[in-house]
């Protein structure tokens, strides 16, 4: 388990540095890097304009820009947001709580509801379950997160439910498959042959063995929830990280976007690593095998 944890941490570190490098490269090579709207002001002299260009283009080429970014991370302020005129670390501190509640709540609600639905449909006849599950998850997968957010606003419901609705079909589809496989396994057949009660079979022999998979799906769902939180927060005007990403994209606030790329990579990979550790702790044989 410790090895798994250490591997996860090293993976987070390496992917963060790589994501930062990729982000810095894209930013540096993106068209219009170093230009700002203020330069178009006709009252400015050529010298002022040149100074502004020098300051906006600080960092020079890609390696220097990357080094500049790493230094800002080590300093702890993560750089400065040109559009919001504040240190990025401050912006993150203010907004992280709202998004964390949304993502955690939405993931938990979506996975729990998906799991419950999958268990309920397991008891239905196969054609009916296939029909309801297929139709329901297809429709739920087909509604954009932004429309879910609009529905939440219209119906005056907490936007956490929009995040949950984005997670639900993914969790349901995977868990329904896993539960069906578990229900068709040999030990369940043996339990039936021995006359074990229906509910005992369901909870002890079908549902209990797949609880590790529920944890694994939760790790994957964090990424989906994070993705969904961007349009949801933008549409619902929630001052979270999703809204910050949207605002940064609309105003081409590239330093914020580089830091967000790294942060989101860390959170999603961290969630996956945590899931792996939890699953390994629950089932050491499986963890050891990996």
């Amino acid at each position: 388990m410790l090895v798994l944890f250490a591997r996860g941490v090293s993976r987070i570190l390496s992917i963060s540095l790589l994501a930062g490098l990729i982000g810095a490269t894209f930013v540096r090579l993106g068209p219009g890097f170093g230009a700002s709207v203020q330069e178009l002001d006709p009252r400015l002299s050529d010298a002022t304009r040149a100074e502004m260009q020098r300051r906006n283009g600080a960092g020079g080429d890609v390696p220097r820009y990357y080094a500049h970014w790493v230094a800002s991370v080590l300093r702890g302020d993560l750089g400065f947001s040109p559009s919001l005129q504040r240190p990025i670390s401050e912006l993150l501190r203010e907004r992280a709580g709202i998004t964390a509640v949304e993502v955690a709540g939405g993931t938990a609600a979506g996975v729990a509801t998906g799991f419950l639905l999958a268990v309920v449909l397991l008891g239905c006849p196969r054609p009916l379950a296939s029909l309801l599950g297929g139709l329901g998850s297809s429709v739920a997968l087909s509604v954009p997160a932004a429309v879910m957010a609009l529905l939440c606003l219209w119906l005056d419901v907490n936007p956490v439910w929009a995040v949950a609705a984005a997670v639900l079909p993914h969790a349901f589809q995977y868990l329904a498959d896993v539960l069906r496989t578990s229900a068709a396994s040999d030990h369940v057949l043996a339990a039936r042959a021995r006359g074990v009660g229906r509910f005992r079979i369901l909870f002890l022999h079908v549902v209990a063995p797949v609880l590790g998979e529920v944890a694994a799906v939760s790790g994957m769902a964090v990424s989906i929830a994070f993705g969904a939180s961007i349009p949801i927060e933008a549409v619902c005007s929630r001052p979270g990280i999703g809204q910050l990403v949207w605002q940064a994209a609309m105003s081409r606030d590239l330093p914020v976007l580089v830091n967000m790329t790294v942060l989101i990579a860390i959170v999603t990979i961290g969630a996956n690593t945590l899931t792996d550790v939890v699953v390994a702790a629950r089932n050491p044989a499986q963890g050891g095998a990996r």
Partner: protein
Amino acid sequence: MTRAARIRATTAREWETLGALTARSCSWLVNILHTRGNRTEPRRSRSGREWWRRYTPPYLPVGLLRAVAYAVLLLSVAASVAPALLTRSSYQQQYREDINVAPCARFPLGTDDLGRDRLTRLVYGARTSLLLACAAALLSTAIATLVGGAAGWIGGGLEKAVLWGTDLFISLPWLFLLLTVRALLPLDVSPGSSLAITFLLLGLLGWASPARVVRARVRSLVASDFVLQARACGSSGVRLFVRQVVPNMKPVLLAQFFVSLPLFVLSEANLGVLGLGVAEPLPSLGSLLRELQEYSMLNSRPWAILPAVVLTCVVASLHLVVSRSEVQP
């Protein structure tokens, strides 16, 4: 690979068989009317009850559902190929004397706040979104074939690097990646350029999951008996790849193409709602949804929600048609 990545890989592997299944589903109507099961078996006369037992549950509800999905897709394709069949006006024509008109004989879905016919914009918007998604799916499948095929065929360090790269791509939320890369490009562009940017964005960023599937398929093909036999017969290199491996990848590539379609339609919609998709006055299903941000107007003009309904129907139909559970009830 993390557990979540493995789940994704497992799901991706499941999709591998979808190409063949999707091709099979095209002959569904023929099958249900003639024979099911062993086709070589001679046809026998059956009593009505046996026919009912054989062809209704579970086939009828699922079949009906799929028939509806096919009908929706057919209509969408018709709208994409020949929008003039469904509407006569242009998507940017403004009827200044008819602003925010309710549905009537002249404007079946009413007009928007610039006096443009909503039906016309919906038809052209569906065309933009579907054609864009098809083109982007083609591009991403082509890139996945190149990257995944090379990784699976060559193996070694290249394979590891590709797997690592796809891991990184998959670990970042798709919409976030789209937003970030879109923000790096100029925002104030012409409608045509915005269309091209959105298409390139979806196509160039959507290759990671398909590349993993393609790599797995190529690895399994490389280890298969017939490739071994072809090697033994003296075939090697590009010839072996083109003659033996590529034809056997067709089902997987077809499946990846179809699986990408609903994802790209949805992504375009999300980008459109956020104002980073196709620019006005060119309509797309996503840009039509922007109007819904003033959700209070839904109380007075509930028909404005129709683009969202159409989008959901089209994407759900795509999901149902390519879904394994629907192809194999």
